[in-house]
């Protein structure tokens, strides 16, 4: 499944090829996550991300408080009371690979963020200018700036592995089948089947997390308590921030219109009044 570009930041969209590319997807079945962190390790090992030199203790089982420029895959641990029962949820967190990626929309650097036709959203650090607009554009708070290189990093959905027909490293490492990988259609089917099972087992609110606010994602979840995504560290109803939408949507049109209007006005002015003549003054 070779990678084919679908969208690039701050660039006219390239012409698309004629091949049918299946859209890939990661399924995270939270009901079977045991928080073993094999995905965290696999991510670090495959991507050769530098290990932190100091080891902060977070006061919980969670490896670190949040994703980091060198830590793209984090299991969030939360203790929550529901219906008088204690629940200890563990849910893997990483880039969601939105169908409508806020980061890409926000990015002003040509080609620094790309979206492939298979759905993967990838950062191309050599084109990154470190402006951090992508961080603002992301409704999931995923991209992180490296203080050293001043570039932004995040999960690549192992685009290098996927390009040669391998599953992402985290999927390969998962021991319980909590993480699965395939086409978006397959994963949605499996997720819905699992939701049905969970509902039959008494999780009446079980549901699939595939937020429509970003036109769906290429990392989807099965949540036993689908009515409370916050308990798993997921935003309830994510969408591209209005600032980015406004700026890259209407404001862009308005801006373009203003720009065009200016040029047009200048032309008309020229036609009507001709070039400005400077009176020679003796």
């Amino acid at each position, binding site marked *: 499944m070779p990678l084919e570009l679908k969208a690039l930041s701050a660039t006219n969209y390239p012409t698309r090829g004629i091949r049918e590319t299946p859209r890939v997807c990661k399924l995270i079945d939270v*009901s*079977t*996550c*045991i*928080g*073993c*962190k*094999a995905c*965290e*390790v696999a991510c*670090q*090992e495959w991507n050769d991300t530098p*290990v*932190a030199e100091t*080891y*902060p*203790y977070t*006061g*919980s*089982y969670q*490896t670190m408080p949040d994703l980091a420029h060198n830590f793209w895959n984090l299991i969030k641990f939360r*203790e929550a*009371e529901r219906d008088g029962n*204690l*629940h*200890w*949820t*563990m849910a893997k967190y990483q880039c969601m690979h939105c169908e409508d990626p806020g980061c890409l929309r926000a990015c002003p650097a040509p080609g620094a963020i790309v979206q492939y036709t298979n759905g993967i959203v990838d950062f191309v650090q050599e084109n990154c200018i470190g402006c951090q607009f992508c961080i603002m554009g992301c409704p999931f708070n995923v991209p992180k700036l490296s203080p050293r290189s001043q570039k932004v990093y995040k999960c690549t959905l192992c685009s290098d592995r996927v390009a040669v027909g391998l599953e992402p490293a985290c999927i390969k490492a998962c*021991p*319980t*089948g*909590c993480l699965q990988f395939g086409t978006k259609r397959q994963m949605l089917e499996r997720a819905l089947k*699992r939701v049905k*099972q969970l509902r*039959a*087992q008494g999780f009446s609110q079980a549901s699939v997390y595939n937020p429509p606010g970003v036109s769906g994602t290429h990392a989807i979840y099965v949540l036993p308590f689908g009515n409370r995504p916050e308990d798993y560290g997921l935003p309830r109803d994510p969408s591209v921030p209005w600032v980015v939408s406004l700026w890259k949507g209407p404001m862009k049109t308005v801006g373009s219109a203003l720009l065009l209007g200016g040029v047009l006005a200048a032309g008309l002015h020229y036609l009507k009044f001709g070039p400005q003549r400077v009176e020679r003054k003796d």
Partner: protein
Amino acid sequence: MTNGWIDIGNSDVILAMGGNPAENHPCGFKWVMEARKNRGARLVCVDPRFNRTAAVSDCFVQIRAGTDIAFLGGLINYTLSHGLYHEEYVRLFTNGPFLVKEGFSFKDGLFSGYNPITNTYDKTSWQYEQDARGYVKQDTTMQDPGCVFQLLKRHYERYTPEVVSQITGASVKDFLKTAEIVCSTGTPDKAGTIMYALGWTHHSFAVQIIRAAAILQLLLGNIGRPGGGLNALRGHSNIQGGTDHGMAYDKLPGYLKIPPVSHQDLKDHLRENTPRALTPTSMNYWENYPEFFVSFLKCMFGSHANKENDFCYHYLPKIERDYSWVNLFDDMYQGKLEGMLCFGMNPVANGPHSNKMIAALSRLKWLVVAECFETETAQFWKAPGIDPTTVNTEVFLLPAANFAEKDGSFTNSARWAQWKWKALDPPGEARADQEILSSIFQRVCKLYQQGGGTLPEPILHLNWPYSNPANPSLEEIAKEINGRAVADLKDEKGEVILKKGQQLSSFAQLRDDGSTACGNWIYCGSFTEEGNMMMRRGLRDPSGLGMFPGWTWSWPANRRIMYNRASCDAQGRPWDPTRAAIQWDGEKWVGDTPDYRPESPPEAGLGAFLMLPEGVGKLFAPDFAEGPFPEHYEPVESPVKNILHPMVSPNPLAKTFKSDMDRYGSPEEYPVVCTTYRLTEHFHYWTKHITVNSELQPEFFVEIPEGLAEELGIKNQQMVRVTSARGSVQGKALVTRRIRPMAVDGRRVWQIGIPIHWGFAGRVTGPLANLLTPTALDPNCSTPEYKGFLVKVERV
């Protein structure tokens, strides 16, 4: 494991108790998930903490550490009093109908035959009523008040839900919820399994906890069945192999016994270890002990071993007491040992009572440690608080190859011996263990040859038939373990079945006349004339139950489910036809390797438990030190007196020590119950030397319940000090709702938890959890009580 990892996926009810499989066996835990997803199986977790397993379970119950027998006793009582046991199974396959001698009794926490002076039991009253032929008298209706079934009922009727609640701290409601699920598998169409690990083995009554679980599983008819069994989850990748090959001080490979001093010649030893059948239908396979034992001696001493010299039996050391390692360290502390070779073990960190371990090592003249890291044991002389100039022990650290740097086999929890290949060469001067051992052996031989010495023969006559004696290949050793014919082997008709020198294919071929040599009878069949069976990677699964008979090789005889005869009814039909381990096809037993004589028809009624002289599973077992039925005893350090019998509160036979360092705390001074455990992110004391693991769990911490933290004014991440009668540790608090206060015998009791993985050696360091743990041992297996001891907690 009686069954295997994959077979967990065939269960309907999974009880995870005395273990935290999601945390410590994440890969095997996938089969729990499969059972839940594919069969709608229910997972029940019983633990002192709401742990990773609890997080994905259908039902969690918190109990006080060390009260497992009370909880299991409650489940036994629930099963019996509600008639939930599998009656036909119990009648056919257990000693329920057996009559016990009249003098047997249990009163005030003690069984009959207790001698308070020697602190031991005289077991004569724990025996069965026998007829003139020596066979046990039985009442198949199981109504006789003297039969095992009725005695069992009487013994456990004290374990009512209310009593269980008072002892364990679990509410009656929670206990009943658990009981309803766990005890629902006593029907032919249901199978339930139990997964346990160190949470059961780290107590001063550990063996009896496992016994209680075995009783429950026998009553529910779950032993021998796919999806059933009693499954020990082994911690290290090859600890099962170590156990099988005689790592314990009192065992020889294949669970043969190290002779005691009373067995001065071979005849005595064989007589004492060859049991007589107790029923006419018992196969009594240990009857073949002489075949196994002589073949072992033949393997050890080769051509030197012959009939005339008792196969060199007198070369074996004879023991007169407990030489398990905590006892050895006590000897060492008392200055009775000069030196120690330490391979694959880190006693300073493993504890118990690390300070005593360090003090003991300081009294050695020399210590050799073969390891791939400089462990706490290798650098005990510079432990915190130790002045190196005061330690006179000479320490040699030999760099050893790790598991990936050598080939060989791993035996997993499911008894599968799987061959592995070397991934890379050991770095620098590091060498594999067998090379280090061989060069020590060769030099010791040379010293004996040059200088003589007392009894040099056991060393000089040791069989060392390897093509490279300085570095034997593990394949050659595997062949030796499997065994070979020393002379042509003939069957009853006189036909040669194996030529001299050929590899044996089954332990049924072993002889007691010296014509076979076998290093470990249970591994006989692992390396035959067909080759190394442990290298097989066959993917066929005719059972559809995940048995994969062509994948590697499992002991015994490539059998995947032990006692599998018990998976069928009296006529040889599987209890559950959708889960058939074996069945009688009219001529023979087919399916898994039958744990039975393959051609014995069901009508013959041969006993399903072929190793035992009874021929059936033991609800009543006179084999253990502190009683034929498990009884709840408090841990050596406990916040309360035993409410069942306050005068006999802890296990009367638990072993404690008397040196000045062996101190035990009282609840007045140390009111909090503490338990130790392992984390997914680390492997023992190894991975703190490794970067990524150190990042995942960087720092030692103490898990403290929210309420206790509030009482003591402790906030999350603040430093706390935990002190026991033996030592003290400091670390950051992890304040959690996952441990709750408990009402134990009407009092509120708190418990805390401490992960074990830190120490003073490594990339990240922290206090050793075992600075706190007591030197108290189980009387049967000498495992220390690492779980359920007393501490006090303070803010620093």
